[in-house]
Each structure stands twice: as structure tokens, then as C-alpha cells.
């Protein structure tokens, strides 16, 4: 079976802002040789800290920004080098939900216009009443269809995020890239949106790339998780084994840093405190990019570790945890 999405050696280097006209050109290594697959109906979580390249990866897949090299295959078709006019035909199938429900909705448009815009651009079913379709979408995401004529500022953050979800669903996509869809929301609202996304996934057989920094949210939502660090994927695993036995030292450190609301868990847990900051993406360390902060690093870590199978996980480390 061909996977829905196959990403191979995807790379994005942004030219640095500090480039001088005659000087050596520098690049921000945002995403470097990232590869993964996504099957139909599956959710892949992309986790990592700020600047690890998770959002850039999402934007590359939706072709909001062009990639530097590597390939993106959607249902077996190479899309990374497609022209915008060719890609337009596939655009309805790959949609995105954004993080900031305030910035991602045009304040001058009514909710009806916002959700109808993708339908109009892609000319789907001209015979069907657009208004009726929009109202159906509003109902699906749990909003009152009568609010069709309201403006975004009349809604709360959680409701706005529902509007963004309705817009993403309008074209009946197969793949949704959700870039931090709940991180701007309060916990009680966050749970409502996560439950909504989960029920939509089973109702419409959607596949998700779920980008988040919150490990617990990703664990809750994704079947497989890829952990990113400084532009590389360091570990890919199914959600159960990743959390039960993290193999990459970075994954382990990341998990031990998450504060737990259970006072009993605090004493029981092994704590790993990383020192320092993530490396400068203009000049990332050679070999394993985590070696500058890793307590296991040795000379061999200056060569790039391949992504190898350890137990149920794929891990890029010379000294994986057993």
C-alpha cells in the first residue's frame, strides 16, 4: 500500500538575514534531511521545542514555502517541485489549521465568507447552495449555524479555532496539517477541541500531521510520534513505546522536563536537566546535533548517526537507551 504521504530527505535552508552582498552566504538550517511516512487515517505527531523545525516541516508539506531539496510524495505523486498551477488541483486535499485563532481569521470577513472562500476558490459543486454547505460545516464543528453572519471578534478563542477547523474541512481534505491547534487555548477548551478533532478524524477518515510542543497533548492525539531537534528527526516511534521507553537521550530529557500535575509522580521520576540552549541553526554542530548538550556524547558523535531500528523505535543515536 502506498502511504498517503511520504517525505524523503526534506531540507529547508533559509538565507540568513545577516548576509552581506559580497560576503560568504550563510543559511539557517531549519529542516535537514527529514524523512517520514504517513498512512491513511493515521496521525503523526511532530514534537520538539521552538526552533526545531516542526512548523517549517508543516509549511513545506502544504507548500506554503518551497523546499530546498528532498521530495514530498502525496499519494505517490511528487509535489515538492510542482508549480502552483499544477498543485492547485491537489490543494483541496491538503489543508492546514493554524495556531493563532486571532491572526488566522480575517477580522473584516464574516464567518460565512471565511468558510465559503475555499469553496469558491476551488469551485466545488457550483450547483450546491454555498450557504447551506457552510452552515453544515458550522454544525459539524459544534457552532450555531445561525452565527453565519457574525464576525470573528464576536467569538471566543475556542470558537474561533472551531471556525478555522471548519474552513480546513470545507474542501473535504485527506490530510490536515494542524500546527499547534490547541496551544493558544485554556485547558478546559483545549480538551473540547482535541475531542472534536478526534471525532472528525474517525467520521471523515482524516490523516493528521499534528505539530505541537506539548508532549502530553501529542501522546493523547497521535498514533506515531516524531521527535525533532535542531532541524533533524531524532526519534520516530509509536506513541506507546515512545513514552514508555524513550530511546534517544534528547527524548528522555524532554520527557523528564514536563511538569506533572500528580504530586506523587514528582519524586518517582528520574530528572534530567539539560544545560545550555539549542545550537545556532546557522552553524549547527557536525554529526549529531544534540551532542553539545548530551551527557553520553563521545568522539563518534561527530559523525552523523543514521536512523536505526531499536526495539519498536527508529532512533538517530550512536548510544541509544536500552
Amino acid at each position, binding site marked *: 500500500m502506498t502511504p498517503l504521504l511520504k517525505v524523503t530527505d526534506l531540507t529547508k535552508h533559509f538565507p540568513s538575514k545577516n548576509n552581506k552582498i559580497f560576503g560568504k552566504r550563510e543559511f539557517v538550517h531549519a529542516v535537514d534531511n527529514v524523512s517520514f511516512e504517513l498512512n491513511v487515517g493515521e496521525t503523526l505527531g511532530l514534537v520538539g521545542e521552538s526552533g526545531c523545525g516542526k512548523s517549517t516541516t508543516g509549511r513545506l508539506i502544504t507548500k506554503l514555502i518551497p523546499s530546498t531539496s528532498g521530495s514530498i510524495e502525496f499519494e505517490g505523486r511528487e509535489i515538492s517541485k510542482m508549480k502552483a498551477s499544477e498543485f492547485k488541483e491537489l490543494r483541496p486535499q491538503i489543508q492546514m489549521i493554524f495556531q493563532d485563532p486571532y491572526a488566522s481569521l480575517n477580522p473584516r470577513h464574516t464567518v460565512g465568507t471565511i468558510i465559503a472562500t475555499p469553496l469558491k476558490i476551488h469551485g466545488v459543486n457550483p450547483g450546491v447552495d454555498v450557504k447551506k454547505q457552510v452552515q453544515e460545516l458550522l454544525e459539524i464543528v459544534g457552532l450555531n449555524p445561525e452565527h453565519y453572519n457574525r464576525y470573528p471578534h464576536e467569538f471566543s478563542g475556542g470558537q474561533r479555532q472551531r471556525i478555522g477547523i471548519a474552513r480546513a474541512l470545507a474542501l473535504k481534505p485527506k490530510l490536515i496539517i494542524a500546527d499547534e491547534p490547541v496551544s493558544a487555548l485554556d485547558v478546559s477548551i483545549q480538551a*473540547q477541541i482535541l475531542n472534536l478533532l478526534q471525532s472528525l478524524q474517525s467520521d471523515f477518515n482524516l490523516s493528521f500531521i499534528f505539530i505541537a510542543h506539548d508532549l502530553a497533548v501529542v501522546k493523547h492525539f497521535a*498514533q506515531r510520534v516524531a521527535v525533532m531537534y535542531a532541524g533533524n528527526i531524532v526519534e520516530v516511534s509509536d506513541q506507546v513505546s515512545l513514552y514508555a521507553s524513550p530511546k534517544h537521550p534528547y527524548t528522555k530529557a524532554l520527557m523528564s522536563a514536563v511538569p506533572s500535575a500528580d504530586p506523587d509522580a514528582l519524586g518517582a521520576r528520574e530528572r534530567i536537566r539539560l544545560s545550555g540552549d539549542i545550537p545556532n541553526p546557522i552553524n549547527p554542530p557536525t554529526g549529531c546535533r544534540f551532542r553539545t548538550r548530551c551527557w553520553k556524547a563521545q568522539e563518534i558523535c561527530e559523525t552523523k548517526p543514521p536512523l536505526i531500528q531499536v526495539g519498536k523505535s527508529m532512533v538517530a543515536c550512536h548510544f541509544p537507551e536500552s
Partner: protein
Amino acid sequence: MTAILQVKDLKVHFQTDDGLVKAVDGVSFEIEAGKTLGIVGESGSGKSVTSLAIMGLHKGSRAAVSGEILIDGVDVNKVTEAEVNKLRGKSMAMIFQDSLAALHPFFKVGDQIAEAYQVHNKVSKKVAKQVAVDMLGRVGIPNPTQRMEDFPHQFSGGMRQRVMIAMSLSCNPKLLIADEPTTALDVTVQAQILDLLRDLQREFGSSILMITHDLGVVAEIADDVLLMYAGRAIERGTVRQLLKTPEHPYAWGLLTSIPKLTGAANAELLAIPGTPPSLINLPSGCSFSPRCSYKDRAKVDCESVIPELAGVKSNSSHLVSCHISETERVAIFKSEIALKL
């Protein structure tokens, strides 16, 4: 034990064009020396407004502040701006969520810390600068003498938050108010900053008022917790009481709606239905009643009578404001909530 800070029936109301916004509506608590109190709540619950009132930062704004805020025997609410200024620095200091916005972008961080120190201490610039170097070193910034000369934008988010902590602790305050100090940071950096705050608290003996929306952060750092909803305190107790045996239905909802790192995955979260009420049109009774799934278990009409914040029978230090009887609450907690925590 003596209380460093006592807040009694604090109310902060804002007159707006749409009506009176009751941002904080009758909140009382105290913090003992060397202890950490966490104030937890969602956006708009009044936790930040409370902290600004303690620092006296509503003075000169449209806010109508009433109630008592006693710190060092002085009622912040009754004295003039100049007198509050004397309390700032030595009695209380504050760190903010967004360190980039809280530091001045045009001045070197060393000068900013030295200036803050000179405002509260009559010393020469040279001495103040030495204090700044010492403080930067103590909050774990490498090469403090060189980093003194850097501007805020040259620091990473975590390092900038350390600069803010250094500034706030430079006058050795008795109370440190931290308003969401780690919310903008990545988890590994958040862990570093929480460790730092804990170490410094031991070293300086300050009390900390930690404002946060993250129950995990509270569990890590606080001794006691005050849970706020729509401008009122609805539950108060030790961290263990609030997180292991919560009494208020809102606390149950919060704890069961957080995805957890341990335990089974992909189970449906128990979300709290609805959204928080408008602070202009608060429900007449318990402000949580429109979203409460258990209000029919109470003997009193939750929608018309505001419940008092009262101690539970088993432990009078654990306060909750709910009409459902204690035996009933324990039964609900045992049968429906405990398994999901």
C-alpha cells in the same frame, strides 16, 4: 508562622463602556514567610489582576480597588504611589511573563539591573554595577561581566527570564510575584527556570506568589494553591489536597481535561462543557453553575445563591466554595473522578 502578605476581600472592578467588569470579586489569602502560593486559573479568571493589585500597579488606572492588601504592615490599597514605591524592591518584586516586553530594548541589561538597585539603595553606580554582575552570576548566566554589556534582544528567552529574576531579586525582596514566568518558554528551559527559582528561594528565603495556568508547574513549585474562576477563589488548599483530593467540580474538570504523559492514551478527555462567563454579566449564583454537571446534586439552588468559601470537615485548611454537601462530593469523587486522575 507570620504571614508576609495578607489579602482580605480584594475586589478589582473596571468601569467600561459595556458595563462594570468584575475582574476580581472578593478574594482573600495569605502567604507565610518562605512559602510558595500558586494562583491557578484560566484566562480571565483574575489571577494577573490580583497580582497587579498587590504590586499597587492599578494606581492611576480606571480600576476601582477595594479590600485590604497588607504587606509589611502597610496596606498597599490605602497609601500613596510614592509609599508603594518604597515597598517595591525590598518588600516585593515581580517577574513578568514576557521578558522581551518587560525589559527596555534600548538599554544594556547590566545598566537596567543597576538602575533598579540604585532606585531602592543609596549607592554609587559602581557598586550597583557590581551587584548586577553578582546577581547575573547567581542566576546562572555565564560570563556575567561580559553579558552585562549586552542588550535584551541578544539573550535567548530563558536567559532573558534569568535577567528578570536577577533584577527582581537584587534588593532581596520578601515576596516575589511571578506572573506566568515560564509560560513563554520551552519545557526543558522551563525546568531550568523552576529549578533556579527553587534554589534562589532557599538561598534568599523569599516567599513566592506563582501565577500560572499550568497545574504541572504548581505541583512542581508551590506549597499551597488557590484556584480561581471568574474573579473568585473557589478552592484553596495544599498542593496535595488540591491535586489529589480536589473538592470543587471545576477542579475535577480541570484535572480530567488535561492529557497525561502516563497512563492510557487516546481515551476521550472529559472536557468541561461551555465557556467561562462574561465578567460583566456574572451568573447570579455560583459562577461555575452554568457549566457544572453536578449542580443537581446540591440541596441549595446553585443558580441564585453564591456559595461561601468554607473549610471541609476532614481538614479545615482545605477550603472550597460549593453547595454540594461534603459527603455527596466525596461520593462523586470516588465513583466518577478518582479513576480518571
